[in-house]
């Protein structure tokens, strides 16, 4: 039994375990709002981590794709009362387009330079959004009315019930996890691996490293946009802060603490981050200090993150049995 417990956990098992975990979570947690938030942040973290954990590039402006996805959803709902799926697809598209634009200018730059540039571009859009107060509501933001889950002509179901909303977002998380698993296992994903392992060798094997990085970046932007649209639907609100460096920093911190080495690390990070921001902030306003300190400790001593350490532990125990 214990042998199976420690040796038998392959990726498929883990995928299903997480799926089941989130499936039954509402039974144990009455605060549906928080766990739905966790779903959206997990999605954000997973798409962000494609760049950090798999390509090996730290993007410090990922809030741009998240926030623009959120704003796209909000603006389309407010001005055009679009169907929920239109909003989601549009949000994803905008996220991908921004990623493409930033990527074209930044991806050629190596490592830390790239991080600076992504931050710069995100801040640029943030300031523009702040200025366009009439459109974006500035720091006060925009409130939305949550649209129903609807396919015109077929059915319409209100998402006002927190439970229904939770499972709606849950489906997207599961779909994203599934898609990312396939991407990572694919030939494309393997190329990302070797780019991260030894970029020069990848080049001398004929791989157009820039092209692969750019495509990965666009995918990351696509799904960060998705996370943004869902987040907007959840909190029924979007503001310029969703585009700002603090939000970018949050996903970086969250992903590292959770673990960059796998698909599921960011989920753990999202859980921890949401817990800190929603609970600690009630006790002490300076919860960011707590987050920052935990983050620094992880960077110094536990770079694998919580999930990574758990995997290491599992391997060690598995070997001893």
């Amino acid at each position, binding site marked *: 039994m214990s042998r199976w417990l420690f040796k038998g956990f392959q990726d498929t098992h883990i995928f299903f375990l997480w799926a089941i975990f989130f499936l039954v979570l509402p039974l144990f947690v009455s605060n549906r709002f928080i766990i739905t938030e966790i779903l959206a942040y997990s999605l954000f973290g997973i798409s962000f981590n494609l760049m950090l954990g798999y390509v090996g590039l730290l993007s410090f402006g990922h809030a741009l794709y998240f926030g623009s996805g959120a704003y796209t959803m909000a603006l389309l709902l407010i001005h055009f009362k679009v169907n929920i799926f239109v909003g989601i697809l549009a949000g994803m598209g905008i996220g991908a387009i921004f990623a493409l634009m930033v990527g074209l200018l930044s991806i050629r730059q190596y490592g830390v330079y790239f991080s600076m540039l992504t931050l710069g571009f995100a801040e640029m859009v943030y300031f523009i959004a702040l200025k366009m107060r009439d459109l974006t509501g500035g720091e006060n933001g925009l409130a939305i009315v949550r649209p129903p889950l609807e396919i015109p002509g077929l059915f319409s179901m209100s998402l006002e019930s927190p439970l229904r909303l939770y499972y709606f977002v849950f489906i997207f998380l599961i779909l994203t996890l599934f898609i990312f698993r396939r991407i990572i296992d694919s030939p494309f994903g393997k190329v990302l691996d070797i780019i991260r392992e030894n970029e020069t*060798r990848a080049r*001398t094997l*004929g791989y157009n490293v820039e092209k692969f990085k750019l495509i990965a970046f666009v995918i990351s932007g696509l799904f960060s946009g998705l996370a943004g649209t869902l987040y907007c639907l959840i909190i029924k609100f979007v503001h310029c802060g969703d585009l700002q460096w603090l939000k970018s920093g949050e996903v970086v911190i969250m992903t590292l603490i959770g673990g960059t080495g796998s698909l599921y690390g960011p989920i753990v990070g999202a859980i921890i981050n949401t817990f800190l921001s929603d609970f600690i902030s009630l006790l002490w306003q300076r919860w960011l200090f707590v987050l920052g300190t935990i983050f620094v400790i992880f960077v110094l001593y536990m770079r694998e993150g919580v999930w990574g350490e758990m995997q290491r532990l599992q391997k060690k125990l598995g070997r001893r049995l």
Partner: protein
Amino acid sequence: MAILKVENLTKNFGGVCAVRNVQLEFKEGELCSIIGPNGAGKTTFFKMIMGLLPPTSGNIFFQEKNITHLPTHKIASLGICQTFQIISIFPNLSVLENIRMAIQSRSKYNFSFFNSASKYLELQRMAQEIVNDVHLAGRESSNAKNLSYGEKRRLEIGITAARDPVLILLDEPTAGMSHEEILDTIKLIQNISARKTVIMVEHNIDVVFSLSSRVIVLNRGEVISDGSPKQIQQDEGVKRAYLGKQNDT
């Protein structure tokens, strides 16, 4: 036909001139060694061919095509591949995966998203063949970082061979090897050089003489001698260059 032509190639680093007006032609099928004291510019020369370093001036032609300012991956696609002085492999991938990625780069599967890479049995099979060719059979599933030094070198040669390149650049392929390993590597190089052009930077004179039909001597960035191994042995200028370096240190 000259498969590789280097015209007036120069590389300046600030005040230091690493490569100075090098003019060389390489024939198809040659196995040529480049030797010279440390700091002679050999590795810099290779880097420029491979596109890893831009020349200060000069041109490089591969199969009549000007590759001087092409990006590395394009140069690799044209059929040039290199092994490095400091072993360059994918440490956390298995031996088989290392080689398979080299083969995969030639295939059209690279932008495929939704298929499991391991399903491409053909690639696996070809990779296994090369694993056997470089005497790493049995080690396919080991992580590359766990290999011994000699095994890592063989892996790198395997990766290069897997690309099936037209021109192979070897930068000190026997560095740090024991005598048996060197003999083994000599045989390996002979195997993979069949019908290919090979340029090799080497310090080990035995290796140079047993493999090369031609030896080029570089000193302080310039070609000071170019001929058959026997000619080089008797060249006074070459002896001075090596002895001079010895006196300096």
